[in-house]
């Protein structure tokens, strides 16, 4: 009881102090009411998991003791006659509701600026992220222990990343949405913010449960089935993390890429496996999201007409009839924009091309995800036996492609730029998967995305990722690469370096599960011989790299794999032995960067440039402009040839050292670098 009173006083005073500067709350209780509420909770629900836990609630979740405004002028002063189920459950578990937090109106926004109560601020002047920015800032600045948010396309994870705290979006259907004001109901998910992983787990566990009032709440029968599936899974101490290659995009900013890369390296070092995976539908996810969410929003927000509750517009002859007037008056610009977008994509002439297509993309994306995870999806109709079992435990990818922008800059952005902020968060939303944003560096979060229903595992793996010691990561990466292979540790790591088989099937059936692009981990050259080669058929392009054995780079002609495989490997040896790079250019897609005469045979139609350094010495210079903004490092003797690759539009660098003058600028290693460095890494 005393602790509760003490905490209530502390939080209340902190809320008062920060209210002006951060604007994280729309409504808070005064110190006396908060103390009373805390005492009541301590008395009525003692010794519960959330006892003495102060929980801030996003203001689009209904509470009977505070107004629920959704940060909309139209709902100013609206008080819900009932508590949302999640609020009731938090209260029942001993939690104290600490106030209602600021947000983008109805959850529509990525920076918490579109609020009728003013934008959410941060101490650094950067965007708080959105739409649950108020909740994130409240937790980050210790105005509460835990905060509830809603995540429709990233509204919990993005602000969590920007504020360097944990942000969790559970699987769709686990936490009841009764009382959660709908933005896009098929995507809306109640989410949680905390600094402390244990508190996060408690808040989630207490909120998780079937609710008959929410028709999308996971049924008790399915929950049972899920428990069975989870229980039958074999425990593994080594985890396998999937890296979606479609996430390796040029917009990825340097610090985020570095944080991601070093986390992967640290995970490898800790004995976990990294696998490059593919989500072919992912590039369409953002577009699909921005069709579906506004469509549902335009429907869900039709009820705000001022007839039964909320603010009615003042009488004015200029603004047209009551409804138009009220809605014009009540909604902010972003909400109006999305309602218009949605109304358009649902209209009779557009629905087939937009809404229906987006639904299709969503289904494909779900299938893509399902094919990756070891755990089957309990919601999928396909029988488990028929399913091609995936291999990974979770996906690990950045929450945001960039660091949070300054608020002033956001205000100058076009709306489309703000939409693009969600590019990494919408896939998990569309597929309904659990996703946890783990703070990995200042203002940078990595998402752990798991199979549907694997929420507890995601939270646990989040702890694993968060506990990695990654300091001064630039230096560390360089060290790893430069240390001679005598060190046992380093050697192990190098062996683990991925062997990339970038295969494009030629329309023929890929055999033994080898698709267009695969990634294999190979420890020994022998495995390349025994495991990889026999499986490769009908390949158009293949690049092989073996860690400490050196480097093989070869582009093989269609069907020529078997015949050439020994040669490919031998070249590497030769290249190292003679201190020369091995490389070859054949047709579309080139392997470049060798002193071999073939390297000069770069065709104009080359679609790929492989920059290879086999001997660890200076092989090229930065800044050779090639094709569309590419810079390729090439040996001096091949410079001319490199320049001739002017039709190249993409580069894949597997292992190269890029020098400026004589200083190592960048060493690029491993699978994670595929494409990552396409423009960025080499064009330092």
């Amino acid at each position, binding site marked *: 009881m005393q602790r509760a009173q003490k905490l209530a006083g502390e939080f209340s005073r902190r809320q008062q102090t920060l209210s002006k500067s951060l604007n994280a709350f729309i409504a808070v209780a005064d110190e006396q009411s908060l103390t009373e509420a805390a005492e009541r909770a301590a008395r009525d629900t003692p010794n519960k998991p959330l006892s003495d836990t102060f929980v801030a609630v996003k203001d689009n979740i209904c509470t009977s003791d505070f107004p629920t405004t959704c940060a909309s002028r139209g709902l100013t002063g609206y008080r819900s006659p009932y508590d949302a189920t999640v609020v009731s459950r938090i209260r029942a578990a001993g939690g104290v509701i600490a106030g209602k937090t600021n947000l983008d109106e109805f959850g529509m926004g990525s920076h918490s600026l579109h609020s009728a109560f003013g934008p959410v601020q941060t101490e650094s002047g950067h965007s708080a992220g959105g739409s649950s920015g108020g909740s994130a800032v409240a937790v980050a600045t210790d105005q509460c222990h835990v905060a509830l948010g809603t995540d429709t396309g990233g509204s919990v994870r993005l602000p969590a990343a920007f504020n360097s705290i944990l942000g969790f979006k559970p699987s769709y259907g686990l936490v009841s949405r009764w009382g959660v004001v*709908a933005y896009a*109901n098929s995507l809306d998910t109640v989410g949680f913010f905390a600094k402390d992983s244990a508190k996060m787990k408690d808040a989630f566990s207490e909120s998780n449960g079937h609710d008959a009032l929410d028709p999308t709440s996971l049924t008790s029968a399915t929950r049972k089935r899920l428990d069975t599936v989870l229980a039958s899974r074999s425990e593994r101490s080594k985890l396998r993390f999937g890296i979606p290659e479609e996430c390796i995009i040029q917009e990825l900013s340097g610090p985020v890429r570095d944080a991601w890369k070093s986390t992967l390296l640290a995970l490898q070092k800790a004995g976990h496996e990294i696998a490059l995976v593919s989500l072919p539908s992912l590039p369409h996810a953002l577009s699909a999201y921005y069709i579906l969410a506004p469509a549902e929003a335009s429907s869900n927000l039709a009820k705000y*007409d001022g007839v039964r509750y909320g603010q009615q517009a003042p009488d004015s002859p200029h603004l047209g009839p009551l409804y138009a007037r009220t809605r014009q008056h009540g909604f902010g610009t972003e909400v109006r924009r999305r309602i218009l977008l949605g109304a358009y994509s649902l209209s009779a002439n557009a629905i087939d091309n937009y809404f229906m297509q987006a639904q299709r993309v969503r289904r494909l994306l779900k299938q893509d995800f399902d094919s990756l995870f070891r755990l089957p999806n309990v919601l999928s109709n396909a029988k488990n036996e028929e399913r091609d079992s995936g291999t990974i435990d979770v996906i690990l990818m950045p929450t945001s492609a960039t660091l949070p922008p300054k608020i002033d800059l956001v205000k100058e952005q076009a709306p489309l730029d703000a939409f693009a902020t969600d590019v990494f968060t919408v896939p998990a939303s569309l597929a309904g998967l659990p996703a946890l944003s783990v703070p990995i560096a200042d203002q940078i979060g990595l998402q752990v995305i798991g199979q549907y229903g694997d929420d507890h595992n995601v939270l646990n793996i989040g702890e694993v990722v968060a506990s990695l010691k990654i300091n001064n990561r630039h230096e560390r990466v360089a060290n790893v690469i430069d240390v001679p292979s005598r060190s046992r540790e380093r050697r192990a790591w190098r062996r683990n370096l991925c062997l990339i088989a970038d295969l494009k099937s030629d329309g023929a059936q890929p055999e033994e599960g080898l698709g267009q692009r695969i990634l294999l981990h190979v420890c020994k050259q022998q495995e390349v011989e025994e495991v990889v080669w026999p499986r490769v058929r009908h390949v158009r392009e293949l690049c092989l790299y073996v860690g400490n054995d050196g480097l093989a780079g070869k582009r093989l002609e269609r069907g020529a794999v078997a015949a050439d495989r020994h040669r490919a490997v031998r070249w590497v040896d030769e290249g190292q032995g003679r201190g020369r790079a091995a490389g070859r250019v054949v047709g579309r897609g080139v392997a470049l960067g060798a002193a071999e005469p073939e390297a000069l045979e770069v065709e104009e139609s080359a679609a790929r440039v492989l920059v290879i350094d086999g001997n660890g010495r200076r092989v090229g210079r930065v800044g050779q402009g090639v094709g569309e903004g590419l810079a390729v490092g090439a040996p001096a003797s091949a410079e001319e040839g490199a320049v001739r690759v002017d039709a190249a539009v993409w580069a894949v660098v597997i292992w190269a050292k890029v020098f400026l003058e004589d200083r190592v600028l960048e060493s690029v290693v491993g699978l994670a670098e595929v494409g990552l460095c396409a423009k960025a890494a080499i064009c330092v």
Partner: protein
Amino acid sequence: MHRAPSRALLRALNPSTGSLICRRCLGTASSLRRNAELQSTTTRNETPQPLRKQIKEETRARKEAKRSQKSDLTSKDPRLEKWELTVGIEIHAELSTAHKLFSSAQTSLSATPNTHVAPFDAALPGTQPTFQAATLLPALRAALALNCHIQRKSSFDRKHYFWWDQPNGYQITQYYEPFAKNGRITLYKHDDIDPDDGDEITIGIKQIQMEQDTAKTVAQPPTTQLLDFNRVSHPLIEIITLPQIHSPKTAAALVRKIQAILKAVNANTTGMEMGGLRADVNVSVRDKYAQAGSATLEYAGVKGLGQRTEIKNLSSFKAVEDAIIAERERQISVLEAGGIIEGETRGWALGSTETKRLRGKEGEVDYRYMPDPDLGAVIIGDDLLIHLRDNMPMLPDESIKLLTEDPKYGLTIKDARTMVALDDGNRLDYFLETFAILDETLDKQHSARAKLGKTVANWVLHDIPTSLAATDGVFPYTALSNGNSTAPILADILLHMLRNEITTPTARHLLSILSEDPPRHIADVIDAESLRLIQMTDEEYEILAQAVVDSSDDMDAVSPSERRRH
């Protein structure tokens, strides 16, 4: 001695009640009764009650005259020779259920406004629909009765438009995947279809969907509109027929029959009369003799149609027929004047002669149909369908067949139709119940058995309503106090009558007990009021007759033959 009819005696003695007869005179008595009945029919013709029959006959005569006039018109009107009418109908029927479609709030007809409103019904922020599975049962019964294919999986969609009676800004309906498709309904001559349609015509049902009703608006002139959200989310079904109707009369017959079927299967109990059923009609005409290709439109797979218009919200059978006639005439006139029909929505006011344009294509609402993201698919299991099929109430057509073709009942088609049509089938149930009790209790060899069905039908259809007409009462199906059926009481009365324990007039007299609250026991009343036929010896009869003769100077013995001459 020639006996005077006891009735005559009785009247002289006690004009109000009772009848006396000597057992040995039964033979005479029965002939007397016949006479009395004959007489009473004639007498009734003079009293106000038979007016009903008279009116009925007059109406029939009028109708027939009208019909012949109309058919004259049809044959004479060259326009209808040239132009063919095509009609498709959409019927919205409120389902009789305890709860609303998407909340546990009760359905209500006349409750205090806004007393049955769940948070979702008022579209409060954060609320979600909860599909009430029980509402599916009457909908499925309706679909089965209309021979529909029940979709194993159906789903709900949102239909968007702003109106104050629509709290969510959309109506939840079934647009993409309705629960029932491809049904049909057959109309017969006795359903009063157009003679041109022959003995029977079958109309296809495109689909049946479930949807929500809106709030009720109560206008408070001059400018106030009060809203009653009790009706919001009442479950409705919308029945959409194929455009296979070619006559206004048949269209009205179809709506009437669908209403009867919905009542029979207890899917809709309120009907058009109480606003529980409304119809929209789609009307088009085409030139019968035009070359193929001139009427090129297609609706629901029916090809070669002219441009249609929709007339919304027709709330009586007459309105359906009249509005279609008016719209047909309008369209023909437009086309004959060289104009073109525009696809538009029109309205019809009761008593008017033409339809009125409400909005044209440019004013058409784009409903922006969207699958409801909150509501999952409705999966209907085969076991449920089997159960419903096995327990389907009898349909009007089946009932009529049973009443007329089963020798047990042996009713005329006219009586059978009346029986089925009256009071949502309650009269039929009442008849069957009374009949069943009598069938059970009446002595197996009783002579009245042969015509038991007709006898009971006459009482249920004629005698009870006649006895009620004087008091302007409603048909006493159930006792007021406990809601029990009064059929056993009627059966009791008739049993006494058929066993000759009381006379027919006494039995009629006793009918008032059906409306009593609580009803007295029949045997008690008979005893208390001395209504029982009493065995009388010749001596007693003589004394009685003598007493009558003595009490009146001008009374002579009257012979039956003389009576008959009166």
